[in-house]
Every structure is written in C-alpha cells, then in structure tokens.
C-alpha cells in the first residue's frame, strides 16, 4: 500500500479509515501544539533518564543510554520532563514559545 497523500480523495482511502501500516503516529507532527518548549542543558544533565521514563510522547532522544536532546516534532510541551528532573540537576527548563 502506498502512502496516503494529503490530497487523496475519498475513493483512495482504505476501508473503514483503517491505516494499513503500523507506527504511523511518528508521521503526525504534534510539536506545533506546544506553548512552552523544554530546553535541555547537556552540561548539567546526569543522564539519569527519569525524563525519558516519564515523557508521555517518547520525545526524549537517547543514544547509548545517554540523553542527546528533545524531539521537538512530537514534544507537546507538557513540562513533565522539567518537573521530574532532579532539583539539584535542573537540566531542563521550560521556555515560552
């Protein structure tokens, strides 16, 4: 099945609105819902990954068990990461968009 194009007519859509592939939420950019952006300070981060465990949108980017940044295409700016970051570390701060 080819990708469903944004200009597809009703005749081209799969029956029942069922998307015939998995993991399609990755292509749905929810980052523009955000009113506040988490800003990560890599120098003070201790890579405890508490933010990664708590992020409801899988937007904490991790490579080899180290945090590398934030996926702004999908982060909705809920602020949970900033709130769970250990107070002594305080590596994530929320900034108005």
């Amino acid at each position, binding site marked *: 099945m080819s990708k469903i194009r*944004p200009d*597809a*007519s*009703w*005749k081209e*859509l*799969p*029956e*029942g*609105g*069922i*998307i*015939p*592939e*998995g*993991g*399609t939420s990755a292509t*749905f950019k929810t980052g523009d819902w955000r009113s506040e952006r988490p800003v990560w300070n890599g120098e003070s981060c201790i890579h405890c990954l508490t933010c990664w465990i708590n992020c409801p949108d899988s937007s904490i980017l991790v490579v080899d068990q180290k945090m590398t940044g934030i996926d702004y295409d999908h982060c909705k700016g809920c602020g949970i990461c900033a709130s769970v970051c250990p107070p002594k570390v305080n590596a994530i701060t929320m900034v108005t968009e």
Partner: protein
Amino acid sequence: MSERILIEGNEAVALALKLIDPDVVAAYPITPATEVVQKFAEYVADGEVVTEFVAVESEHSAMSACIGASTAGGRVMTATSSQGLGLMWEMLYIAASLRRPITMAVANRALSGNINIHCDHSDTMGARDAGWIHLFSENTQEIFDNMIQAVRIAEHPDVRLPVMVCYDGFVISHAREVIESLSKEEVQSFVGKHKASLSLLDLEPKTVGPLDLQDYYFEHKRSQAEAYKAVPGVIEAVGQEFGKAFGRSYAQVEEYNMDGAEVALVALGSTNGTIKDVVDGMNESGKKVGLLKIRAFRPFPAELVRASLSKVKAVGVFDRSMTFGGWGNPLFTEIRSAMYGTSGNGCCCGPCIPILDRVYGLGGREISMAEIEQYADEVLAVAKGEQVELIDYIGVR
C-alpha cells in the same frame, strides 16, 4: 432437511446463532431479548457450539468486545434491546465506521421514561443514523431467516457493514410459532466461511481507529456513505439465493395485494401480519386496500417505495415510534422524502399523493384489526378528496 418446530422468537434467534456458530458472541441480557443470551449460553455450556462467549458487564462493553473481536478477524454476533441498545450508542457508530460486519438481533422495545418493557420501535429508530443495516421481521420464521441472511449481507465484500435484525419485543420475542428450521449443514453451507478484511491477526501491522481530523474525517464519511449503495443489491441477491436454497425468498420490501389497490398501508414489523388479515377482509368486501411491508429500513429502499406507492391515490403510514418535535415520525418522513420532489430541481414533481401518518402501539399498546380497518377507511376517504388530520394517533386515550 427442514424440520417444523414450535419455537419462541428469542429461541429462534438463539437457534440461528447456534447453527451459524460464530467465533465470538459478546452479549448482556435485557428484557425482552434475555432468552437469546440465556439459551445461547446453554448451547455454549453444553458444547454445542465452538463460539467464545463473552459475558460482559454492560451493553457498551458488549458492543466494544464485538468490535474488538471482529477487528481481530472473527465472525461476531450479539443481541440486545431498548436501553441496552441505548447504552451501545457510541459503539454502534464505531462498528459501522470501522466497517465491522457484526450481526445483532434487537428485540424492539420502548425506551424509558417511564420504564416500559414492551414493544415499540423507539430503540432502533434512535439508532437509524448510526450506519447499521436495519432488517425488520414480521414473525418468528422471518427472524430466523433474517439472522442467517444477515451474516451474508454484512460480510459481503461490497458491503462489510453491521446488520441489526429487528423483531417486535414480546409480540414476536415471546410468542410461540411453528417455523421451518434448517440443519447445521444447510446453514453452514449458506453462510460459508468468514473472510476477515483488514484483520489485526493477519500479521500485517495496522492502525485501527486513528485520530481523524479536518484533513481526512470528511473523506472517510464520504467513502462510508458509498458502501450503502451496494447494500440493496446484496439484500435482494441474498434473499433470492435463500429462496432457491430453502424455499422462502426475501426482498427489501414486500407488496401485499397491491395489484389494483386504490390506497396503500405501510408498516414495519409484526403489525404487517395483522394488516394482511385486515386487507384480505377489506378486499373481500370490495375495498381496494393494499399493503407495502418495509423489510429493509436502512438503507431505505426509496426507489422501490416510490415505484410501489406511485400506483395508489393515498397512503397510510404506521409509525411505532415518535420523533418528538419533528414534522411527522420516522417511517412517514422517509416515505414522504422518497415520494416528493424526485427530480432534484426542488419542484414538486413526485406523485404528489396524500400521505398520512399515524403513531400507534407505543409501549406495547395493542392495535386491533378494527383500528387498522378504520384507518384504512380513512385513507380511502382521503383518496376521494376528504380532508383529515395529516399526523395523528391510533389507540391513545
């Protein structure tokens, strides 16, 4: 190998379920459909079916489980009535939108309040816009036959929509009638093997029920609307095939003594049986009254209705439910809409014959043959130019 048996309406539904032997039945008992679930649970306990029976805690869960099981690729059936159907409401729309070919028996019962357990059509009329196919049954034989045909209609590759088989609560659900039953082999060969479409268990990943906003929702509804165009042809073809196999053919509508009729009565469900007797008597005394029985209410067979009713001078519609604050009641508005302004240019170019609406039988109120005859006489008088109330009631104090 048909066998004549004496059976209650609900038991006939349970028997049809047993002979179909679906993969999953998820249901919650409710008066007057309780015996369907009770009897089918016996079949399950006695090992007479392979069905996975899911005893859920509510009708909302029953329909949710049906949608899940159907999406997993199973042949799925259930039964309910009245408040139970009401509790399923949001899931009814989802079943149809996801094109799940679920079959459901509905014993038509009044909706609260006040609390009433007896027959009228308020429950399924409330669900008329949910996207299900609605087949009404006149008697126990028809419920049994409709249940079996419903599986074929729902699962037809051009359709894949849920079907509700409606039958009048208590009037049919609890009445014993002699029907011609079928053997398991006959039913199995008629319904065939279930072929799931876009099933979760076919190992190809899928996303079912995704967020569908301004960008696609409208297109999905448009494509859903298209599916109903195939349904009339499939209902007719399955009804014919059923007739060839078992000797009882079915269509979307049934004309009774309409040849040469001056006026027509139109009704749904068991009242049609009573009307047929009245029509016979009136025809014998020279009154030209016919009956148009609507078997398929959704999709509404507008063209067949127009072709049939265009032959008469006046029409009397029986409505067993009400649209409060609407102009006329559910069956009447469908009939009027089918009959008038058919060219699409807005002018009144339909047959322009008087069509009356009478609400009757709410909450199980009996309708007598005398009342039906009186209404038919009124329609005959209207055909001769007499003025009467357009929308009124029969049998209310």
